[in-house]
Structure formats: C-alpha cells, structure tokens
C-alpha cells in the first residue's frame, strides 16, 4: 500500500469506521433492551428501532463535524494537501453513510425477528421512502441517502466555520439547511402537504429521494471543498 | 569553547596548528573528520571544512580520498619555522623596543636572558598561547 492509499483507507484515524460500527451495534442492543423495558411497563405497538434511527442522523453528522477541525491541521502539517484531505473526507462520508445504513437495515431485520418471537406488531409510524422495514434494499438506500446528506451538509457547515474569516460559517449554515431539509423530507416525510401530493408516485418516491439527495450531497461536498481548498492553517497561539 | 577573538573556522585552524607545533599531532597522523569536528564543537560541518581547506592550502594537512585528513609530514617543521619567524617579529622586536622606550639597556636584557637560560636548563615548553592573534 502506498502512503496515499494507506492515508485514505485509514482516514482520519485507523479503525474509526470499525469503532463507529461497534457503537452502532451497541446502540441497537440498547434499543432492544429498552424495548423489553417498555414491554414490561406497557405495550410495544410499533417499531422502536425506527425511533432509534432518528439519533443515527445526528450520529452520522457528529463524526464529520468532529473530524474536520480535529484533523485538517495535523494532516496538512504532515504534508497532505487540502485536496487529498477533502477527497478522503468524501470517501469517509460515503463509507460512513453506507456503514450506518447497513447497520440500520440489519437492525430492522433483527428487530422483525425479535418482534415476531415476542409477538409484538412490527409497524412503522412515519412515512418513509421505503415500503416495508424488511425490504432491505430500499431501506438501505433510503437511510444511506439520509446519512449521506446529513454528513455532507455537516462537512460543508463545519468547513464554513473552520474557515471563519468572512463569516463563511454563517453563510454555510442556511445554505446547509436549505440543502438538507428537502432531501431529508424526501426520504422521510412528516412534512408539508404539498410535498405529499407531489410525492403520490408510489414506488417513484425512492426515485425522487435519489434525485434530491444525491445532488444535495454533491453540492454540499463541493461547498466544503470550495471553503477548504486554500484555507490557512493558523497557529494555535498567536505567532511571536 | 570558542571565544570572540576570531571567526570559528580560524580558531579551529589555529588549534590544529598548535597541536602540530606541540607534537600532539604528528606527521601522517589522521585528524578528526570535518563531521567529527562539527559534532564535537557543535558547529556546521561547512565551517569545519573551511578550516580544513585553509590548512590544506597551507600545506599543513593533506587529504586521502575516501579515508580522511592527515597531517603533512613536513607540517611540524614548517610551522616551527614560521613560529620562529613570528616569534622574533612579534615578541622579541617589540620587547626590545619597549625596553628601549622604558630606558632599560639591552645589555641588561641580554644578561637577564642568559640567567634564564642557565636556570631553565634544556626545558622546552611549547607555545600554547591561545590568546595570540591568528595568522
């Protein structure tokens, strides 16, 4: 492996994705235990994992928001270009989205088994772009898009605040929200009525989600690149 | 280590000349490499190299390709000759001038020197006067 391949494969620190995966699995176990708890005190009438995945969005966002300010300077200080860094970030965002989407999908499948064994109804509350929680492919794509957009927007807004001068953070934030909301709604509505009417396409729902999410994510990542491509690495304390 | 009297490379050269003069370094003996000098005195190797080059130009050192720097066999004699000349010019002549200026007859100076010669015997002390201005 060349140093560059090694850099991208282990970005930003080796083992991070495995670590994220482990947390995901642990989180699933916690949700299932909580479900058992709910069953003890009351009724389990809907999927609890579905509620659990709300946090997953923030979880996906968190890692990207953490890694840019933490690792951009050390990477550049070790001779990696900003372009290489952002490219690695993009790979990370996609890999993270895929990983978390896979975990969520697997979670639904395991939850189905658990619910069937416990004779609880495996029902969803929100309106999703996927039909059934066990249609693995559509579940995976749906959540994958969600995490992709959240992480990408996270990257762009973080880049804006990192760049700082010119108040780019304050510009990136509303732009980020603008990119995030429609995409997020396309995947999981609970949103405005006109969107519902627009979305009465049945199976075309996923197609629409793809149409909105992929460009949004791409734009957000492009925005992150534009903000970081020549950002200065400042001293941590004032220069002598 | 090094004082402020002259540039470092001159002091290194002078130190090696002194060692040759005193017989601490003998003909065809290998001297420390420039890198060893640099490390020992904590200076840039180019500075040490400059000192060595000066000594090579003077004929005090010669270089054996791939092995190192060596003292020229005639370096000792050469330096003693030069030191002798400088001694008379820089020490004896001014001393005589000062004696005259102060009013001491040279005959007294000569008598004093003869006394020292009898007392000192055949002791030869090397001239390790580092305060000297370099050549």
């Amino acid at each position, binding site marked *: 492996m060349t140093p560059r391949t090694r850099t991208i494969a282990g970005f930003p620190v080796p083992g991070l994705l495995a670590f994220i995966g482990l947390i995901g699995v642990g989180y699933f176990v916690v949700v299932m235990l909580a479900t058992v708890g709910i069953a003890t005190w009351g009724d389990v009438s809907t999927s609890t994992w579905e509620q659990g995945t709300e946090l997953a969005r923030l979880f996906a966002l968190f890692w990207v928001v953490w890694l840019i300010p933490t690792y951009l300077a*050390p990477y550049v200080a070790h*001779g990696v270009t900003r*372009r290489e860094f952002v490219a690695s970030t993009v790979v990370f965002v996609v890999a993270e989205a895929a990983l978390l989407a896979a975990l969520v999908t697997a979670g639904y499948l395991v939850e189905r088994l658990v619910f069937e064994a416990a004779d609880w109804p495996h029902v969803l509350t929100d309106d999703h772009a996927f039909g059934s929680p066990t249609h693995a492919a559509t579940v995976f794509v749906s959540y994958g898009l969600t995490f992709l957009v959240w992480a990408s927007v996270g990257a762009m807004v973080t880049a804006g605040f990192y760049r700082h001068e010119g108040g780019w953070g304050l510009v990136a934030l509303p732009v980020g929200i603008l990119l995030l909301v429609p995409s997020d709604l396309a995947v999981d509505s609970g949103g405005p009525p006109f969107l519902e009417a627009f979305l009465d396409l049945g199976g075309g729902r996923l197609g629409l989600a793809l149409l909105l999410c992929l460009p949004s994510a791409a734009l957000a990542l492009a925005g992150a690149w534009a903000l970081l491509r020549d950002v200065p690495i400042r001293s941590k304390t004032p220069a002598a | 280590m090094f004082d402020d009297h002259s540039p470092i490379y001159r002091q290194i050269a002078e130190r090696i000349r002194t060692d040759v003069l005193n017989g601490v370094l003998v003909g065809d003996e290998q001297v420390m490499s420039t890198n060893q000098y640099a490390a020992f005195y904590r200076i840039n190797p180019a500075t040490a190299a400059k000192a060595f080059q000066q000594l090579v130009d003077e004929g005090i050192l010669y270089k054996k390709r791939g092995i190192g720097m060596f003292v020229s066999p005639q370096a000792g004699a050469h330096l003693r000759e030069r030191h002798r000349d400088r001694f008379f010019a820089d020490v004896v002549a001014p001393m005589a001038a000062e004696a005259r200026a102060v009013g001491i007859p040279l005959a007294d100076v000569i008598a004093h020197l003869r006394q020292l010669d009898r007392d000192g015997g055949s002791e030869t002390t090397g001239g390790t006067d580092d305060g000297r201005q370099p050549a």
Partner: protein
Amino acid sequence: MTLDIEIDDLHLRYGELTALDDVRLRLDGGKIHGLIGRNGAGKSSLLAILAAFRKPTSGTVRIGGQPVFENPEITHQVCLVRSTGDTVEDDDKVEEALRFAERLRPAWDAELAARLVDRFHIPLRHAIGKLSLGQRCALGVTIGLATRAPVTMFDESHLGMDAPSRYAFYDELLADFMAHPRTFVVSTHLIDEVSPLFEEVTILDRGRILVHEPLDTLLARGTAVTGPAAAVDRFVDGFDVLAEKRLGGTRSAMVYAAFDEGRRRWAAEAGLELGPLSLQDLFVHLTQPTEPAEPAGSTSAAEEDA
C-alpha cells in the same frame, strides 16, 4: 538529492498589514540555513508559506523547482515544526501522535523517534495537552527530525526547552544533518546560541530581506575595536559605527567594516584590540529602525540570490 528553495516577488498581506514585502530569496539545498529577525519581521509567515500552511497574496514559491501550495509532490517532502504543535492534538497521547506521523510520513524513522523521546524524557502514555511546554517543544522537534523530510524547518521550536534540552536538540540536528543531508531552515531568537549551526544566514526585517549571506561572510563584515578612547576615535573615523561602549578611558566601538592587513597592523601598534562582532551584535544593530546602517553589501547580496 537535496531540494532548493526559490522565492520570487513574494507578498503577503493580511488586509491592511503587509507581513512580507517583495521577498526574493534563494536557499541552496543540503544546507542548514538560519532565519533571524525581530518579532513581527515575518519569519513565521515566510515559513508558513514555504510549508503550504498559507497561500501568498502574490509571488512564486518553489521547492525543487516546483510550486509548493497544494502540490502533493512537494508538500509530502516538507515539514514545518512550530512550537504550537500543529501536528498533534491535545487529546491524543504522545504515542498516538507518533503513530499518526509514521502513517503519513514515508521517510519516518521510528527508531530515531524512540531514541529522541527517550533522550528528551517525553512520557509516551501522557496526553499531549498534559505535557509541559518543554516536553511539547521536545515532541515537536522529535517529530521534525524523525520525519526526515528533505526540507525540514523549525520555527522557534526550541523556545520552550531548557538549556540542556536545547543543546541536545542542536546535537541531534547536526548529527542527523550529517548522516542524512537535507535542507534545514531554523528560525530563532537565540541567535548566538544557534548560529554556529548555520551555514548561511538570512535576516528578515519588517517583511523584507535585509541580508542573505554565508555566516562567515556576514560575521566578517563587522569588527569590534577596543582600546584607549582617543586611539579608537582616530581609528574608526570615517567608518560606519553601529554602536559603542565607554568605560572610563576605554572605548569599544562596533564598526560595520572589515579591516585589511595594513589597518590591523596600525591597530596592533596603537594598542587597539580588534575582534569580531557576534551575529547577535550585528543583528541587533542592523535591524535598528533608526540606524541608517542599511549595509551597502546587503542589497547586492539580495540581488545575487537570483
């Protein structure tokens, strides 16, 4: 293969403030270069630009003939160490920082890093944020040396270290330079302490190159003349006197001039002592803003850098 540094028409402005003004400089590869200047002279800015930490406002910066900024071929071969520790994170442990460096730096020498960590007494298991200033600086120079980057630069990275540690650093720097020749640029305020390591010296003053010369040449430009005041007065008359000290009847004048054999004899006969100026003396007096002593040699030295 050693890499040269070529800077042309370099300007760096932060809004109204000009940090670097029309800098032209050529630093030969394979040498230890000193970079000195007063606070705010622009040393850190210059080094930051060389390391691609910053983009210049205008001008060209080349290392090994290639542009630097965002050029991975070059940036992978450059290492800048600042006392603020850009390569490390406070939450990380020392050993994590070293592993991180090892991953990203193809020429990393783990044995050297281990030996230096030991020599500087840096605790491997401690978080970097918990280290003392001296240990942080020592870690910085450890990473700088073990990286073995063809262009390695130290921006006052020894500032927080105690004297024994600093001297250990100089020894290690010299030893590694001789074992693995490469281009070093060392910026420092401890001029007389560090200057024997330099082969060439660049003095930066208010964003401009004041002098760039071999160390010996620069040192030869000045002479301290000490002796009876009247004799000194006669001797230095007509020369550029940078500064002087008087004690009773004795005067010591720092003159920006080198004297030939004839004048040296005159000095000896007049009972005057001639000695070199330290680099620090020269530096302090060359960079005094009120002094008109912009040495005649320096502008030609700057032009020779092309």
